[in-house]
């Protein structure tokens, strides 16, 4: 439990100057990392070393560093968000690694998420899917009292389970087809489980799925890899619900 020191680590990391660059792996060594440090703190230390040595530091996305904003997005030793369960990259700690180990770090790999630089990818495709229908069409003001429509406890809980998605994209990175179904289904379920969201449920599912297909995400073949790697434990039962909503939507067209 007490923190130990990892004397030496080899960090094999994807370097890519910009979207046009082909990219390649580079390996760096780093010394004296506390097992109590986070993975990103380890990268901070490596970057400060690179800067002092006159090299370009490694670009990676991060912000809240507490597992909620969904910005961090590293593919570590072959797994999105690395070798721990139910965590984001920023919550991953160095106690999960061994002294002398070589750690491989890559960006999310998916056609719909092009690399901007090094480990930073462009996830605008997710934005576009949500803009296509991931909302309830109400304006500010003129809404009923919050308690006017009771919501069964279980429905609110299920809705919240799905709403916990942080939009990180690990599901896409984990999927051999680069499918965004888990992400899309989480939003569809979050809203469809509430009476307020039911009204537009079919239209929402239809529009979001169409946008997803248009943006170059692959199809879902039910491998379940997404669920395993999702830091927020979003369940693939949401995908079944999405399929249902979607079929209903097609049916009523």
């Amino acid at each position, binding site marked *: 439990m007490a*923190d130990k020191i990892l004397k030496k680590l080899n960090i094999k990391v994807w370097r890519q100057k*910009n979207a046009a660059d082909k990219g390649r792996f580079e390996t760096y060594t780093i010394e004296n*990392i*506390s097992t*109590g*440090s*986070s993975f990103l*703190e*380890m990268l*901070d*230390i490596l970057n*400060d070393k690179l*800067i*002092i040595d*006159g090299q370009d*530091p490694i*670009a990676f*996305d991060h*912000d*809240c*560093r*507490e*597992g*909620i*904003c*969904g910005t961090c997005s590293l593919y570590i030793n072959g797994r999105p968000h690395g070798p721990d369960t*139910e*965590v984001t990259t920023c*919550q991953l*700690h160095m*106690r999960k690694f061994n002294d002398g180990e070589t750690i491989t770090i890559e960006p999310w790999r998916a056609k719909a998420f092009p690399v*901007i*630089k090094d480990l930073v990818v*462009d996830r605008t495709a997710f*934005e576009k899917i*949500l*803009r296509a229908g*991931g*909302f*309830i069409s*109400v*304006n*500010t*003001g003129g*809404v*009923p009292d*919050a*308690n006017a*429509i009771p*919501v*069964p*406890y279980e429905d*609110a809980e299920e809705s*919240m389970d799905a*709403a*916990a998605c942080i*939009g990180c994209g690990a599901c896409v990175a984990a999927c051999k087809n680069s499918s965004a179904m888990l992400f899309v289904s989480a939003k569809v379920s*979050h809203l469809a489980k*509430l009476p*307020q969201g039911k009204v537009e449920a079919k239209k929402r599912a239809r529009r979001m799925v169409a946008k997803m297909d248009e943006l170059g995400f692959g199809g879902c073949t039910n491998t379940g890899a997404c669920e395993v790697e999702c830091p927020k434990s979003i369940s693939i039962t949401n995908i079944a619900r999405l399929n249902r909503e979607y079929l209903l939507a097609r049916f009523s067209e």
Partner: protein
Amino acid sequence: MSILNSKIPEGPLAEKWSRHKAGIKVVSPANKRKLDIIVVGTGLGGASAAASLAELGYNVKAFCYQDSPRRAHSIAAQGGINAAKNYQNDNDSVFRLFYDTIKGGDYRSREANVYRLAEVSPNIIDQCVAQGVPFGREYGGLLANRSFGGVLVSRTFYARGQTGQQLLLGAYQAMNRQIDKGNVEMYSRHEMLDVVIVDGKARGIIARDLVTGEIKRFGAHAVVVATGGYGNVFFLSTNAMGSNGSAAWQCYKKGAFFANPCFVQIHPTCIPVHGDQQSKLTLMSESLRNDGRVWVPKKKEDAEKLRKGEIGPNDIAEDDRDFYLERRYPSYGNLVPRDVASRAAKERCDEGFGVNAEGKAVYLDFKYAIERLGKDVIKARYGNLFQMYEKITDVDPYKEPMMIYPAIHYSMGGSWVDYNLMTTVSGLYSIGEANFSDHGANRLGASALMQGLADGYFVLPYTIGDYLANEIMTPKADTNTPEFEEAEKAVTSRIEKLYNIKGSKPVDYFHKKLGQVMWDYVGMSRNEEGLKKAVQLIREIRDEFWKDVKVPGELDNLNPELEKAGRVADFFDIGELMALDALNRNESCGGHFREESVTEDGEAKRNDKSFTYVSSWEYKGEGQEPVLHKEDLVFENVELTQRSYK
């Protein structure tokens, strides 16, 4: 006469807002279409404002430095949002929420603003439910509430430990709908670096495209800054890594006064600092104090053994535990306001009772609640927080108490705004944490979310119309004027200056140094000597920074170090103003504790006779002393009492 005009409406407190709304101008739908508004920042304030303004028919351009507006740090707020719904029948009311907020803020905020906040709070909950925010519910299907520090009623609505996330997604989704309709143009990965003033009015901004490095000009009829707080001046804080005070600071340099910079909130329940590799601190929601009991050992020997790791917390007998909050504040116990809880933890640790290796931690123990309610109930309430704690510390809080320590969390200070949320620059607005307006010297838990959304959904959309009604004949901003030219040049030359220093140390080196000075001298406990020393030290570190910082990478590419350098450069200036403000305010109030101003039993002592005012600072140019303007605070509806939570 102060040059500050707060524009507080006449009339009885409870009627001010409705009278004001009745009196202000409204822009016709046809004219709204001709008007452009820039909103910088997309947290609760920015996203709710952008969505609401676009729904009204204005053309909105929204900006955020993150890759998506959904990442704004409002997302990390855990515990809840207050509203005077009185759903619990526990005698809550708009007045009670107003009173708690004024008292909690230690009588350093404006009555009229705070009352309005309480007044619109019920609408926020209605709005969020309509948007599909999955608030916690009772088995009967109605909304559930929990209680929070500093109050005696249960008025906090929550979505597990992710309330900020869910509220932000609600506002973000409302904004997405407007983006889809073409009413909001979204600029992600863009950072505002200056505000452009033309003929005394805010007419646009200069922003850097963080992917290409391009410096761009954007024009509008009004600019709204919703960029959050400046807590990262301390380096270690609960803010996101990118959170910064630069937008508000550029506004300050262009004439928007900066108010109460020394009022920052130290949150009592954060995971303690360990070692020296740490980059940020993680908050454990205040809601945990509902069921957790805070304690340290009674005996110093026990504390020493704990620090050495010879014994664990569960080895300490019941009678040897000092539940110091319950002991000192019997009526509020573990639920005293944040500033009180923070100082009490520091006091125990300074006395040698700290429990981690660094001696800077106290326990937050759930054993008693688990015995009373069962593990399942606790898990349902706080499961995700417990999981987060375990992932970070490798300790199971169901079995062992959490270790916590205070950390910088929120800035009550910010751009000075009038009742309309306009700064001292015409057409330049500031909302949410970025302004100073509602929390006085201390913010109550679950009130930040309330204020961000109140400003964005229900206040600004009304008040901005009063200004814009006079701008309907003003043509779209021409970004080729000398004012834009000059602002862009200044931005570019500052970036080049930073880049060309090519010194020997990375930005973080200086940021950490600054943070240490801030924490030591402008932190939880302040005194004249220390504050003067802080000013001196900050100036020295700043000089060193501008001579020796090393910004790697390229100017025309994604360059996080360059972004950081610009923000840290501003943090030096913000830190200095904080110290000056703290020096001026020789009283203890809320989060600001001056060792020179205490009661006999060591509690904070306000000095209402000399300091019942807002300190509003005017920029006078680089290297010049800023000028202090005082806005006197007038209390007509509450009596100023020394806060007591005993």
